[in-house]
């Protein structure tokens, strides 16, 4: 199955969920399917699910989706027991498994040699962990995940192929500010502030 066909299904159902993606092609193809400021691109390999976990715990009423790669998740497998331990019901962790380090020259990862990351997730204690083998099955599993009372892990085996999509339009710092402003606006929060002149301060 093609990655972008999975993303089209997820984008239809994701609503205003906050979405965290990795350093590679997942980000660009996801952004083409659901553009907007509720997307955060991660540059540290492995930290997609950890950053999404922090968001899910920080805003327990808001849906958060992590779109992870196999190479990325393999670098931070300890995220799975940590997610299981906190079990945030508003977190859906989607693994897009193409069995290669795509952005690093298409060298094989361990998943092509038999490592089953859904089994790893289940073994880590994430009870709602399953593969979705086609876009229709994904639609069902993903919709259930958005309503679930536990964290969900969904594995997708995808082709080693990119789709033609526009480039990601911003750098890391702009992404950060746009994302935070989006959270402020949609949640009615004040997160960012600037230092005020001394004449405005009652005490320092």
């Amino acid at each position: 199955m093609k990655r972008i066909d999975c993303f089209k299904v997820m984008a239809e159902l994701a609503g205003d969920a906050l979405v965290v993606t990795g350093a590679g092609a997942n980000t660009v193809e996801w952004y083409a399917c659901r553009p907007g400021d509720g997307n955060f691109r991660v540059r540290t390999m492995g930290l997609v699910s950890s950053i999404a976990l922090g968001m899910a715990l920080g805003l327990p009423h808001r849906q958060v989706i992590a779109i992870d790669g196999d190479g990325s998740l393999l670098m931070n497998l300890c995220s799975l027991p940590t997610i299981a331990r906190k079990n945030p019901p508003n977190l859906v962790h989607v693994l897009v498994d193409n069995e290669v380090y795509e952005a690093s020259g298409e060298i094989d990862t361990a998943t092509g040699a038999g490592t089953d990351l859904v089994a790893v997730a289940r073994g880590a204690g994430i009870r709602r962990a399953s593969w979705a083998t086609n876009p229709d099955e994904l639609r069902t599993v993903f919709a259930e995940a958005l309503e679930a009372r536990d964290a969900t892990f969904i594995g997708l085996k995808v082709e080693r192929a990119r789709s033609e999509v526009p480039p990601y339009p911003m750098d890391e710092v702009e992404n950060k500010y746009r994302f935070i402003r989006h959270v402020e606006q949609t949640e009615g929060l004040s997160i960012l502030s600037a230092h005020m002149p001394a004449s405005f301060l009652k005490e320092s």
Partner: protein
Amino acid sequence: MADNPGPALIVEGLKEAGVDLVATLPDINLHAVLERVASDPDLVHVPLCREEEGIGICTGGYLVGRKCAMIMQNGGLFNSVNGIVSTLLQYNLPLLLLVYYAGDVGDRSFATNGAMTQPVLSALGVQHFILRDPNEAKALIKRTLVLTQDYKRPVAVLLTKDVLGQRRPGE
């Protein structure tokens, strides 16, 4: 250890600073601090399996409006370096790092970790302050939280055995 006011003052300082999400990994010298964090109903406590994931979790928390801190040993700081560089520094993100300074002078655990702690922090451009007097804990933690938010980079407080507990004979 029960006599040392440091652990309670450290956690009180975090709460008075407004910290509400704390990611931790145990060290025996952090035990009294972590017990307080884990049992405090006002703190979201995330026990980690490896420290670098905590950099991610705290980043996610910050992006949705939480004030976050990590508590770990200096070995965990070393485990976290890629996350510090390619997330916290790359995106200009604040984070308060409370780091047990194992191998500090007068602390006979992990002398090599101790020797490398300040050089690594300096190389990363991470400002750091050594906490030796428990009575300074609350003020230092509150000030470093303000500093990391203003600086938009991580800032570390190095927790010595002077504030965490009693030294063993010979230390």
